[in-house]
């Protein structure tokens, strides 16, 4: 996969352990948010405040209080809460500001782990994930298909007006569409596409075209012409030529472009935020914004939702990672 020589690069004299330490340190810091998501998702707010950094120990504390209405120790109120690590090893101390406190004991129990946070998280975020997958996958597929067709048009022959059309596309590459969102909103309203997923998909397709066509055109132009001529000699139409010649050979670049496009659409939230009204249509970005806007947040379910939101990409990357890294390296070396 890499083109570097098999032997090592770098100084032979000193050992590499310092580099390893440093790199591992950075990677650990990068993984820290994932760790936090996991450990918070099993706590409720109270145990998180007690114990923000470490996972919850499987111990709970039962505290006994005098009932202020009764006044004597005959009837005690009890309160159950989770224990901190210091309390597990060092014992419980009396809270300072409570004159009614009587006693407290710790005991082992697995019920301190709030697994229902995950159930709530799934219920909250799964529809949004489905919407996002739908939007991203459809948008990427259509966008790539149209881009391949378009790039083929530019790369195969220098048709009349192709220069003008190419300039029309390239102009867009230079034009930052920063002010587009405002009239885009009214355009979608006039097309009656507000509050539909179709609006997001269509705008997403349009957004990706220019870059994809640009990269694909350069790639297709570099393919040997005799392959095309051989296919044409065999009576293949242009579509068949694309299917038999272009696609197999450009698989890596198509894969990389698809993944980049997919990622871009996965993270999109601005247009859905202003276009969509109904909650069942919300993709991931908007759903996370709404979750974050809650008045008093229960962090457990929210962290579970965040973690679940990260999982589809993990799955996708586990399958496509080799493709992605190879494509990136190939593209980078060329560019």
């Amino acid at each position, binding site marked *: *996969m*890499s083109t570097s020589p*098999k*032997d*090592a690069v*770098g*100084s*032979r004299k000193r050992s*590499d352990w310092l*580099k390893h330490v440093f*790199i591992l340190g*950075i*990677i650990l810091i*990068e993984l820290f*948010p*994932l760790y*936090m*998501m996991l450990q918070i998702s099993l706590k409720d707010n109270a145990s998180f405040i007690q114990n*923000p950094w470490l996972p919850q120990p499987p111990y709970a504390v039962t505290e006994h209080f005098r009932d202020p209405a009764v006044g004597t120790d005959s009837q005690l109120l009890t309160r159950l809460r989770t224990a901190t690590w210091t309390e597990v090893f060092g014992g419980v101390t009396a809270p300072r500001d409570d004159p009614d406190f009587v006693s407290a004991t710790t005991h082992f129990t697995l019920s301190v782990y709030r697994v229902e946070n995950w159930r709530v998280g799934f219920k909250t975020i799964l529809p949004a994930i489905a919407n996002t997958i739908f939007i991203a996958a459809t948008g990427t597929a259509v966008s790539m298909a149209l*881009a391949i*067709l*378009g790039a083929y*048009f530019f790369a*195969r*022959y220098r*048709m009349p007006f192709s220069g003008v059309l190419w300039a*029309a*596309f390239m102009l*867009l590459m*230079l034009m*930052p569409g*920063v*002010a*587009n969102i*405002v*009239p885009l*909103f*009214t*355009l979608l309203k006039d097309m009656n596409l507000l509050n539909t997923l179709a609006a997001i998909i*269509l705008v997403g397709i349009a*957004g990706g075209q*220019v870059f994809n066509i640009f990269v694909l055109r350069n790639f297709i132009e570099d393919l040997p*012409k005799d392959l095309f001529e051989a296919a044409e000699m065999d009576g293949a139409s*242009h579509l068949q030529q694309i299917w038999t010649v272009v696609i197999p050979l450009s698989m890596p670049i198509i894969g990389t472009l698809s993944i980049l496009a997919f990622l871009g659409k996965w993270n999109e*939230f*601005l247009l859905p935020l*202003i276009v969509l009204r109904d909650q069942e249509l919300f993709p991931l970005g908007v759903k*996370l914004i709404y979750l*974050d806007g809650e008045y008093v947040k229960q*962090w457990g379910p929210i962290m579970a939702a*965040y973690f679940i*939101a*990260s999982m589809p990409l993990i799955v996708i990357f586990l399958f496509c990672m080799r493709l*992605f*890294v190879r494509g*990136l*390296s*190939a593209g980078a*070396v060329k*560019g």
Partner: protein
Amino acid sequence: MALPLSRQKALREWKLYFFILPSLLFVAVFSYFPAGSAIYHSFFDWQGGDNKELIGFANFKRILGDPVLWSAFGTVSVLIVFNLFKMIPSIMLAVLIHRLKSDRAQYGYRTLLVVPMIVPGLVTLFIWKFFFDPNLGILNNLFDVTGLKTLLVHLDQFFGWNVFFASAPIGWLSQPDLILPALFLWGFPWIGAVGVLIYLAGLQSIGQEVYEAADLDGVGPFQKFIYIELPLILTQVRLTLVLLIIGTLKDYGLQLLLLGEAGGPGGRGMVPGLWMYNRAFIAGEFGYACAVGMVLFVFILSLTYVNNKYVRVEK
């Protein structure tokens, strides 16, 4: 290169135009038309509905005197400087990984890097927002535990910043003076896995002999970086630089999510894009928002032109 063709062949291949038609249609409807419409409407007093009133250059005159917009440009320049600085850790990490002796370790780290990249950008953003939370956030907890908070409070009393108080949690996103530092801190340790992978790929072509020669000449590690590695990744760095500057100028999603629609307390986190969004979708002044967008557009366009003239983008 695309083959040239004779007129007869071109006429026979007329069906090929259908290949470009859908893309053209999409781009015309969803990219060109809104762009044109934005230019058109920037001369109107437009509330977003059907009624608009032509007011000529009044929007632009208002822009000239708009203090929020100009301070937003100031903020975005600071953010560009921050982001330039934040490019460095990726380069450093790529060089470090590249210089490892073991090839297997290189591949392992390369894989490990992708894992944090998996976390969608939005989730990372919200996690950092959670880190910044004054009461529950990890950052404040860290500062308290390591004594940095008391240090900051003392410095505050000495310099008179009026930002850090002993009895109040540090409000990263609620103190106007802390917003820019918070935007700088966000994303620590500022490694972009995509960037690192691209730089690593670019560094692959350096052979062992170059390093051996450098060692014979007694070149130190930092000089090795400047003379050997940097030139090879220079094109990538330049490309990333340009994209970074244009991206920072354009983007306002980060500020919208972290700080809210008004750019945070005191509006210190307001960037031009966010001001445009604010004017359109909160104040309902669509015409003025288009004008702001136009100004931003011209700004970026001129930067891109300058970049293209002096920095050729290779094919």
